[in-house]
């Protein structure tokens, strides 16, 4: 796909053509200069052969859509290998694994922290009903679950974890405006460390803008993004618990 072994570039029509689509609004009224400003910005982003395909005046602002060929490439060798996905274990296999290897339930406490009131995602993972046709953790005989619901302060979550002797803490963060999620997540890890709880807990985060890289960077054990199924989380927790034996 790319001349140089592990360098990859975007692909539209022919390998390595670098085609990307970009849109943005600039605070300038539409016209020839505005179009040129958009092209220059695109140039700074590394686009060549820039085509401004749409320019719409928004009264003092201008909205642009453009296409171009980006000069940058990404070196796949510089992207750390991650376990792309846990071994796909079934409901029964997961319960079996826990029973055999741990011989007891895994205790998990979950919450939407800070001011976040979006419980649907966490409920999808934790509650009976589950998600995408798969049962939630609550339904697994080998999980003991506590779902604290919405707008839970980090300290309350950690206190509950301590109270019930949790093995794992599950945090959901959906609101990302003004980086609310980063603040809440960072605070949690700092608190857990300060309270000396960090190493005894598997702490994982989930939400539409969370991923493995972001989560580990913030000090979490794992991160789960959009479309996560409860079984993926259950499989991860079971295997991570076994790894930690």
């Amino acid at each position, binding site marked *: 796909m790319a001349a140089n072994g592990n360098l990859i570039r975007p692909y539209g029509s022919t390998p390595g053509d670098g085609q990307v689509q970009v849109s943005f*609004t600039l605070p300038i009224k539409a016209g020839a200069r505005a179009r040129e400003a958009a092209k220059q910005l695109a140039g700074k982003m590394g686009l060549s052969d820039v085509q401004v395909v749409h320019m*719409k005046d*928004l009264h003092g*602002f201008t*909205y642009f859509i453009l296409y171009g060929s980006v000069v940058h490439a990404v070196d796949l060798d510089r992207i750390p290998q991650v376990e792309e996905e846990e071994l796909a274990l079934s409901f029964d296999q997961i319960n079996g694994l826990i029973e055999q290897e741990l011989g007891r339930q895994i205790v998990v406490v979950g919450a939407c922290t800070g001011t976040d009131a979006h419980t649907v995602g966490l409920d999808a993972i934790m509650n009976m009903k589950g998600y995408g046709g798969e049962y939630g953790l609550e339904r697994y005989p080998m999980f003991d679950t506590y779902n604290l619901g919405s*707008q839970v302060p980090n300290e309350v979550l950690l206190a509950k974890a301590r109270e019930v002797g949790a093995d794992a803490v599950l945090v959901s963060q959906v*609101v990302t*405006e003004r980086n609310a999620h980063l603040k809440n997540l960072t605070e949690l890890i700092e608190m857990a460390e300060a309270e000396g709880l960090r190493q005894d807990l598997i702490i994982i985060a989930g939400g539409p803008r969370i991923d493995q890289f972001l989560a580990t960077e913030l000090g979490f054990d794992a991160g789960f993004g959009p479309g996560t199924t409860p079984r993926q989380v259950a499989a991860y927790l079971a295997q991570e618990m076994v790894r930690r034996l």
Partner: protein
Amino acid sequence: MVNELLVLDQKKVDQARDLARAIAQNVQREIELNTTVSIERTAARLYGIDGVDRFGVPLPNVVVDQVLEAGGLDRGISYWLANAVVALGKTPQAVAEACGEGLNLCSLPPQDPEKWAAVEREYVPKALDAIFEQRKKREAAKERLGVGSEPLKYVIVATGNIFADVEQAKTAARHGADVIAVIRTTGQSLLDYVPYGTTTEGVGGTYATQANFKVMRQALDEVSEEVGRYIQLVNYCSGLCMPEIAAMGALERLDMMLNDAMYGILFRDINMDRTFADQYFSRMINAYAGIIINTGEDNYLTTADAYEEAHTVLASNFINEQLGLAAGLENWQLGLGHAFEMDPKLKNGFLYEVAVAQTIRQIFPQAPLKYMPPTKHMTGDIFMGHVQNAMFNLASVITGQSIHLLGMLTEAIHTPHVADRVLSLENARYVMENARDLGSEISFKRDGIIQKRSEEIVDRVVEFLQEIKQLGLQGAISAGYFADIKRPRLGGRGRDGVIKKGLDYSNPFLTELKKRLGLGE
């Protein structure tokens, strides 16, 4: 006006409406027993009390809290204020400011009843007249400029900064928006006070304050002239300060208010007695101010499945209608809500959706129905999202919806960017103009999927309302009848702000509103 695309069994519709009326009457009886801190703060505001004390506490809270603490609130704040006005010879505002400095209303000697009654007779009509002035102003502006054609294009602004909101709102109006809603910052609904002044910090929305209302209304008045269309302004008359916001909105000439009889109970875990009392007074104000309310049935479908739970939306519409009428709202003010939340993967989902939207349309022919866009099934695929919104736009124009909240292609990503709104407005304009008269062109087969689905929902709603009547609305809510959420009668936030009215309780604003609205005692 309304195209009769479906054949409805009018007997069943009447039956459902009768059931809802009975349900509402039962609630109404209990409403009359209580007042709340927010109702009393509203009275204080209507006396003209505004501003904050030196700790930043809003003066309406200052006066009401001290009377509550002193155990005097069961008489109503009006008495205490009027009494103080007489005792101190000051305006209510000056009285409240004094309270901020340490004055305690309950420690003032009781004055001649004639005198404080005279104070009430002075201030109450003045406040209500001011509200009515705004109503007349709105009506004149609407008359002069028009309001756009239905479905009205309604967009939200939510930058967190009222001045940035203004820019976004103006741009939207210039590109075809008819209605602008300023979304509230995360969690404001749970504050038991209304923040003061203009604000620039909010997450996911902007504080609802009277100053912010004024800033935005003025900006929209300007842009209304520019675009030759009266641009309507919306905010949230909801949460723990529901009636206060009604008063603020009435005074600042908002045009619509999110205002639901049950939303706070179900989705914000606010105590039900509190909510029922608050919604009643807030709706009287909205009614008198000529404001159109928007009910929140769309919220049921953000957690529940739109196909399975369609009948709960309709049932809630019936209940909101009856509680609204009981508070003096007229049919043209009842922006009953529903939403396009059908799973896009469902085969014939569009047909099922049209069945519900059209059923609601025909059942409430005079109501300015508010139709909410896809949200739950929107993903980061903005291209697909734009198409989902197109189908929503089409459903809306076919079924003749009134207030159409535009879906944003970036719904799953962020509160709208300035261009998102314009893209959505263009989407709506194209689809709605391109299929403008489709609804009057077609009819549905008598034995077809759409007609059958409609019949099924009407059947289910009758059953459902029967059960609710049996349990009482409070009982049904406790039992999880709506949105799969159980709210116990005695639980929920703001319960200590509910006060049983004393025998000497009076709220002259409420009394006067009843009179002016023609509501019997």
